[in-house]
């Protein structure tokens, strides 16, 4: 049952993803954390960390990992989790691929249609809001600790500010930032 639900959910996620991996992350987060509550926000953040650090498109990685976690969290065995992850990855690509194959010939000749052009322009603008919402939803106590003058919250805010500035202004490699933050956490919280 959850496998069917998973397939349907990721079909939707695939076809409504416009503008790259981060908007897919926003859709996945909304479906698997907020709507279906297949995992906690914390688990989802961990999945994102691993998806960003491993090879391949981030959208596919997140879908694969989230599919696995959703199934295993519902108490099913590992092999069904594997099936779930494969279903999620397949579902997320199948509709866009069909659309691509249909429009490939057509769109190359009708690129200048002003109506279609306006639609894509509005979509590009809207996706920014989608990702903003995902970021806001992830700013949770689960990931940052309870707000106040305690060790975890202060360290979290400092790490957040540092990583944001480095990645936005200096375009520092995200993998490096994740690895360093992990090392910092491992050291600070262990002593």
């Amino acid at each position, binding site marked *: 049952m959850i496998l069917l639900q998973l397939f349907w959910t990721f079909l939707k996620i695939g076809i409504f993803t416009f503008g790259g991996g981060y908007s897919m992350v926003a*859709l996945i987060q909304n479906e698997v954390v907020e709507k279906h509550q297949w995992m906690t926000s914390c688990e989802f953040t961990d999945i994102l960390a691993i998806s960003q650090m491993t090879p391949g498109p981030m959208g596919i990685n997140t879908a694969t990992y989230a599919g696995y976690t959703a199934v295993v969290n519902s108490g099913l065995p590992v092999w069904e989790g594997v099936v779930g992850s494969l279903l999620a990855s397949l579902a997320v690509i199948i509709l866009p691929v069909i659309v691509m194959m249909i429009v490939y010939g057509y769109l190359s000749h009708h690129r200048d249609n002003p109506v279609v052009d306006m639609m894509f322009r*509005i979509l590009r603008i809207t996706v920014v809001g989608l990702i*903003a919402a995902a970021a806001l939803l992830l700013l949770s106590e689960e990931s*940052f600790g309870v707000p106040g003058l305690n060790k975890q919250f202060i360290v979290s805010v400092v790490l957040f500010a540092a990583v944001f500035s480095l990645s936005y202004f200096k375009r520092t490699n995200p993998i490096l930032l994740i690895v360093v933050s992990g090392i910092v*956490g491992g050291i600070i919280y262990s002593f």
Partner: protein
Amino acid sequence: MYWDLFVSFWKIGTFTIGGGYVMIPIMEREVVDRRKWLSHEEFLDNLSLSQAMPGVFAVNMATCIGHRLGGFRGVIAAIAGNILMPITIILFLAISFRLFRDNVFVEHVFMGLRPAVVALIATPVFRMAKQARITWSTLWIPVVSALLIWLFGVSPVWVILAAIVGGLLYGTYSAKHKGSVSSEGKGSVE
């Protein structure tokens, strides 16, 4: 041919860490410079189409190039190559991570990297806002979208649908009333 497609996209999928856009230069080197499957201009055409269409950018690129070279089977070969290693690696990590999750040190490491991950999701918001050339007159669109999703729990699917319908309606309207709206007709959203 199918094998070459598979191998090329296997390389592209396996050796690019950090998402679709990191793949662009590596993909271009592979399919334009090395294999000479496409000219630079064709590559750019496929690129803009893949960015505009729904779905995962890298998979869309694989679809374009696979389709052009080998039809439906070409698509399958390119996509299979592209996602084989990422899926294998993720599955391996997903299964093994469950074994270490309760380790105190691992939890400490993740307490450190969670805020970093959230910051990395916040970064593209501002970067993409620039690229989408949001003006004061269009600022309400992402703000309202974000608030609907964040505070009111509206599904992003509805927000995207509204954007598609709104964009088509507005495009039709401005095409009628202002003659042609070029892609640079930014002032038309007022």
